[in-house]
């Protein structure tokens, strides 16, 4: 088997490592992500229960699921997944992020397998997952199609992958870069590179090319009146999707 291409972009990793310690400061640089968390957790909980036929009323509906949080950062998603019962592997190319995440999880008394590794390296192991969270990561990787391919390989047959990213639209440039980074100061300048944003069409093509079916696409918009993020039909800026790997033929 050919050695997988390394899809990590070293400049992006260095940028996020510098911010590592601030992951868990709800008033710090990652405040937007903290505010964004409930809407995507609600989506993940609902859809995993739906696709995996799990008991939605359970305290730990994800018990027994092997879940990979790729590009886990400080563990903002890994920790909730662990509390919902999943066997969580949190992978991030930045050792600083992994260190922050591991220290925080230990403080929370949560057992999460954090690894400073990449999708390419995980493909080489025999670890395969029921659910992969690929949230706000793809716009930061060097080779998105290869990265999606590696993630597809990491899914068990019948497994599902959550994808969240930013659309390459003028509106996204206005809101996510000019608005969030320069006007509102929600995100550090340079967090996002508009050229790396991905349209839903491109995402669908990539997942199909990797043998996955895109089964859901949903927009996420900020409601300034309620001061919270909500799901919406508008895929123009932030959006999430679910790609499923067919059961083994």
């Amino acid at each position, binding site marked *: 088997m050919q050695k997988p291409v390394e899809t990590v972009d070293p400049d992006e990793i260095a940028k996020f490592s510098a911010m590592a310690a601030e992951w868990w400061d709800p008033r710090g640089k990652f405040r937007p992500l903290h505010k964004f*968390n409930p809407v995507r957790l609600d989506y993940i909980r609902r859809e995993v229960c739906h696709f995996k036929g799990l008991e939605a009323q359970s305290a730990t509906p994800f018990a027994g699921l092997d879940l990979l949080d790729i590009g886990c950062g400080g563990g903002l998603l890994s920790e909730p997944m662990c509390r919902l019962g999943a066997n969580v592997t949190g992978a991030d190319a930045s050792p600083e992020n992994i260190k922050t995440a591991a220290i925080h999880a230990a403080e929370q008394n949560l057992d999460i397998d954090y690894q400073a590794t990449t999708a390419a390296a995980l493909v080489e192991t025999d670890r395969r997952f029921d659910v992969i969270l690929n949230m706000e990561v793809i716009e930061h990787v060097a080779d998105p199609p290869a990265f999606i391919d590696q993630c597809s390989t990491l899914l068990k047959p019948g497994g599902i992958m959550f994808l969240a990213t930013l659309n390459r639209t003028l509106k996204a440039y206005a809101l996510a870069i000019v608005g969030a980074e320069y006007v509102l100061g929600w995100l550090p300048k340079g967090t996002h590179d508009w050229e790396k944003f991905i349209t839903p069409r491109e995402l669908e093509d990539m997942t199909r090319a990797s043998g996955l079916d895109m089964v859901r696409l949903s927009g996420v918009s900020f409601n300034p009146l309620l001061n919270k993020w909500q799901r919406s039909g508008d895929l123009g800026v932030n959006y999430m999707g679910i790609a499923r790997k067919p059961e083994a033929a």
Partner: protein
Amino acid sequence: MQGRRKRHEQTPSCDAAAHVAGWTLRAEWGSLTRMTTKAKPTDQAIAGAPARAESARCDVAVLGRGNSAALTALALAQSGFSVWAELVHGDVQPAAQPPSDARDTRWQRVLALSPGARRALETLGVWQRLKAGHAPVADIAVGGPNHGDLPLRFADAKTPDRPVDVLSHIVSLADLTEAIGDTLRACTALGGAAQISAAAHDFNPQTGTLTFADTTQLRVNLLVDASGAQSQWRTRAGIACLHYDYRSHALSAEVALGAPHGQVARQVFLADGPLAILPLPAPTRAALVWSLPARKAAALAQCDEDVFNHELNVAARTLVGPFEHLALAGPRAYQPLKAQIAEAFTGTRLALVGEAAHVIHPLAGQGMNLTLRDIGALVDTLCEARRLGLACSDATMLENYARLRRADALAGAFGTHGLAEIFSGPRPMRAVAATGLRGVGFIADNWPELKNAFRRQADQGLGPLSDLFAGAPSSEKTR
């Protein structure tokens, strides 16, 4: 200030014992962790994580020894959170001895609980333990100092055939406090948490470590401060309060009426301040709540009963008509009237509940209703956090709680505050206000939706209905 001084006094005598106590407790921690293990134990070594001593853990610690703290602890424990409550597990000081003649003072201080608050207390199992009964209020008559000012009535005058809607329930504070105590003792869900025989001393919001005077430590996800208006924890968290001193006192006592009250609560706005007569379970008994300038309150609380009765009948002359005569029927008490609201209802790993967050004018008896709405919103917030896999201390979820509650508390505070202020203002103001009230009364009489909106706000407050107020059994909630 007083608390800080006390701590300094205790320190020298505690130090030696603390060392010993620290060791004995550490030996017992193994058995204490039982209650905390909702999360999986960290038996797997995590790269980069420092080795740390295992200390007892729980989801929420509730500080305070009053009714707010007790109700918060009950509600959280019944929703499946592991709770350490200061008033259950802490260094409990013996409660103040009830006065020897408890029967006489039972109706000295009363609360007006909204129907939603009643449902919340039923859900918590407190309402069923009330022993002294309760008086439903079917109508409220509000007016100014002159005969023509009465009445704005709240019940729907246009449809007298409709079954009577209960606007609120008058209960005895002493009785409610006892019922809450009984419920707390019967709550097995609160029995499993760590017993710590020292006072809570310090909290580190970064790590969630609650340290006790004997150096014992408890790891908590969220600290709920329900320790009342003078909260030290709120001050330490750097949260300031807006204060308002009404420069008056509320005189309260049970009074006898010459005729049945007919389940109507009556309020008159006088120049000195508002006077309210609230129905009690006995048809010819009522609870008097009378705001007065401090000196006058003190004088009236101590004067002869005949003098008091005369003053009362003069002050309440617009109310006296239907009753012929009001007469004192129990001991009198008075307390200063103050209002305050915390500038923030949450901090890092901190949520304020009850009077730690807001103290309002007791005119409308809304304090306990606001507190129960705090508790309902807090339980909903934490249940939603748990459903999403978030920690109880998640800042975004706590922000939601703060946003929900601060608007409601402000509305509660300034609604009653405004009424009281206008009617104790200069005469032209009062005339305008009385006319305004009559206008509102007229509109409300002819537009029942408006009255229902008022009533809904008084019952459930602003914002969405919490599960506690909807009366949802906690077992149905997603764990």
